[in-house]
């Protein structure tokens, strides 16, 4: 009972905030280390398909990304609504894929070049025609390790 009687007896002392900067710095370092800046600005709209067997993509530095989908609303006046291919920051054509792969490969260490893989981020409503063209271009550029980007789910709808 005496526990409750103490209430109001003493004035509430202010919480010591001296260690607050330390805590904040700790959090800050955590986020600084884990952060990955978004390197590309997507110009196409992509809704990834779902898959149950999707695996985590390892070693991001060895992966190049190819985005395929309808141009975003801002770009539809310029590029129309047909699915387009985005390489780095620009909307490109199928014939540019080979050059892009060669470029990406040159930017890598020589020892890593054989481990290079390409991740295709394709909107689920895209027709296979353009995807097949890109796949053929990748084969010609001998970038054979590919990854169909998809969201991992436990069960398909």
């Amino acid at each position: 009972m005496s526990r409750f009687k103490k209430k109001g007896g003493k004035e509430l002392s202010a919480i010591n905030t001296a260690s607050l900067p330390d805590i904040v710095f700790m959090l800050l370092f955590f986020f600084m280390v884990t952060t990955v800046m978004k390197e590309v600005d997507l110009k196409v709209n992509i809704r990834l398909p779902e898959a149950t067997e999707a695996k985590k993509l390892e070693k991001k530095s060895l992966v190049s990304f190819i985005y395929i989908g309808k141009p975003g609303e801002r770009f539809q006046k310029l590029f129309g609504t047909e699915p387009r291919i985005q390489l780095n920051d620009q909307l490109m054509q199928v014939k540019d894929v080979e050059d892009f792969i060669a470029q990406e490969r040159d930017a890598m260490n020589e020892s890593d070049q054989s481990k290079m893989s390409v991740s295709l981020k394709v909107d689920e409503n895209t027709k296979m025609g353009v995807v097949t063209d890109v796949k053929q271009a990748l084969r010609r550029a001998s970038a054979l390790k590919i990854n169909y980007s998809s969201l991992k789910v436990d069960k398909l709808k």
Partner: protein
Amino acid sequence: MAKRGLQQINAGSMADIAFLLLIFFLVTTTMDVDTGLMRRLPPIPDKDQKQNDDKIKQRNVFVVLINKNNDLLVENEVMDIHDLREKAKEFIANPEDKPDLPEKDYKEIPFFGRVYVPKNPIISLQNDRGTSYGTYLMVQNELLAAKNELRDEISTQKFNLKYEDLDEDQQAAVKQYYTAVLSEAEPKNIGGNK
């Protein structure tokens, strides 16, 4: 001024600065992990390399066709995508040794010894240019799932572990137990549709 001793730096605003940085990184950080289906494309065949697909027997090939309306034709039967996994599993394993499913043969595999397994079943996938990517990926996923499920089954039976948790040698053995090559047909432009 100089006479006064070295003053302590006022660290009161340190917390504010740190907070500011913290909020910046909180906003810019992206925690998403990329996931996807890993596949290998076949290299471009040499021009003078002979075509030898006619040697493969019909019973060893599991043909999956997808048309532009996203309908499936599996082994000459129209099929719902939800039945594909079971059908593919039956094809890869051929548990009842049916004459229209892949040929089986005795094979020496480490850990398992001499087993009676299908020799080399091939899954052939062909799609139209008008097929939607979502359906295509779903089919890929189902076929991959069929293989993975069979491997999981056999490794749970043998080692009481999932396929993923096995060590390298064991995984290689299980891989030999159920082999199924997924081959995609060279794109053809039938009917000239876009």
